[in-house]
């Protein structure tokens, strides 16, 4: 037994090393003074300086944020309605609908991205921020629905009925009772939708138009242009830290909901 448990311990440590060492190496070398990716010479912030003084990075960051915000809002509204429909009402085709909503999660993103692009071209829709947003919503809505549906499964509908008996009409009941009690679920789903949109590369790559870049796209194109450089390291570390903050937020809200 003892051998088994120490083996498991070592195994776990190795899994974590495997998972995180590339990221740690990337972060360390983003502080490297020399351009070399093999030898760490001196600690320096010069690559970060280059990143923060680059207007293209700021523009991309701004784009990422507002695209993420729109995607989050729209997918929460649609996802909430979808989750409410499948958890509260029974209608024909409900089970088909419930499976259909999961499909964007399982099909390869590249296929989805390509099909979106083909559709836009077919419908003659000019590529740009709008097409990127539609593309992001098309999959984040699935995640939002799944998260919300799980939370709503245990939802006690009688609190809405109680509100009705106390004189609240349907609209008042929704805004004063339903929405506030679902708030933790909405927050968790919203942060998930935002992170997914903020991190997305493939779909953005296929659906964006000339000149419109999000942060992952800037990282991708600078890697494609100049190969891997310390500047790219620091840019990636920068993007990573933003995603990390949102992930922390999400974990915290999930924990407070679990209580």
């Amino acid at each position, binding site marked *: 037994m003892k051998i088994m448990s120490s083996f498991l311990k070592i195994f776990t440590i190795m899994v974590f090393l495997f998972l995180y060492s590339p990221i740690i190496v990337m972060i360390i070398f983003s502080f490297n003074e020399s351009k070399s990716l093999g030898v760490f010479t001196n600690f320096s912030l010069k690559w970060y300086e280059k990143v923060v003084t680059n207007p293209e990075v700021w523009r991309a960051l701004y784009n990422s944020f507002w695209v993420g915000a729109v995607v989050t809002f729209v997918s929460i509204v649609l996802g909430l309605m979808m989750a409410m429909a499948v958890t509260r009402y029974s209608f024909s085709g409900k089970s088909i609908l419930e499976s259909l909503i999961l499909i964007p999660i399982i099909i390869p993103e590249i296929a989805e991205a390509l099909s979106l692009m083909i559709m836009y071209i077919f419908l003659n829709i000019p590529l740009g921020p709008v097409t990127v947003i539609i593309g992001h919503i098309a999959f984040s809505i699935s995640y939002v629905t799944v998260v919300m549906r799980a939370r709503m499964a245990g939802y*006690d509908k009688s*609190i809405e*009925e*109680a509100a*009705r*008996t106390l*004189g*609240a009409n349907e609209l008042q009941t929704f805004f004063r009772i339903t929405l*506030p009690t679902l708030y933790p679920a909405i927050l968790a789903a919203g942060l998930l939708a935002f992170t997914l949109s903020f991190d997305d590369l493939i779909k953005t790559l296929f659906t964006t138009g000339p000149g419109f870049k999000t942060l992952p796209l800037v990282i991708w194109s600078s890697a494609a242009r100049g190969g891997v450089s310390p500047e790219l390291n620091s840019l990636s570390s920068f993007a990573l830290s933003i995603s990390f903050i949102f992930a922390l937020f999400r974990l915290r809200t999930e924990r407070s909901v679990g209580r």
Partner: protein
Amino acid sequence: MSEIYSVELIDVLKRFGNVVAVDHVNLKIRENEFFSLLGPSGCGKTTTLRIIAGLEEPDEGIVKLYGEDVTDVPTHKRNIGMVFQHLALFPHMNVFDNIAFGLKMRKTPKEEIKRKVKEALEIVKLEGLENRRVNQLSGGQQQRVALARALVIEPEVLLLDEPLGALDLKIRQHMMVELKNIQRRVKTTFIYVTHDQTEAMTMSDRIAIMKDGRIQQIGTPLEIYYRPSNTFVASFIGEAVNLIIGEIGENNVMNTSLGTVYCPEQSIKGKAAVMVRPEMLEIGENLSQVDNLFKGIVQAAIFKGSYIEYRVDVQGTIFIVHKHGIDGMEKFYTPGTLVEIGWKKNSSLTIPV
């Protein structure tokens, strides 16, 4: 002058798919009455209550509140209060906001809300807990908040859907007395749904017994206990009942598989059941002054504190006898003892079957 009823249901019918949950129910509930709907689970009592609240729409029939047809009036425009089975307190609000919700919906001025919530908390004896979160309260306290929330809007009718079900026995017994007192004090019609006959018997002015969506009998607790209108009510109410089926001929004499049974005067004729409550049966070795007498063997004797429950086998039929006022061990019949049981014909009742 025709009497105005607080709630009136006329031929109300409700289907769920192929199941008729409420089957042509007629009810006339008087003002300030404590009225219970009692029946086994699935008998349609909760659906009936929800129809009164407007939370279910009847397929047929009319619902009236104080003489006014409200069949098509939505829940939030009916002046009713409701206490739900699982209480349904608003989890994101404290005690004050829970109770004040109905008043806010009615756009009551702030000062008045404060005063009324305070009064409501006094009625349910929860003074000073305004700022508590509802999940910090005990089961009994949550119960009281739910009650205060429904009462504070001064409803014409208060509907209660098995509100004591989740509480443990001691608190439940206490709340029964409390509820009845509150009902007297606030002078409101209470309609109480329960499957627990003790609750219904303790609090109600009148009880409607339901089964399979139909009302079996409406009456005071005494009436339904001593004058059940059918064998279902007879066996559903009370701890136990003895029913002997037979055919009543001339002179109130019934022929049964056990022999002749003498029934009370003016009994119905034909196929019937004679009902004897366990406490009306006498047990002994040499009984006199009884109209019906049978010999049997004690099968079980269970000591229940204030009485002994005997199960006596009479030619394969089991009679349940409750013997009160036991004075000493000599009268305790152990299983296997040959005994006589009997009853006066006037302590029994004949029921059509």
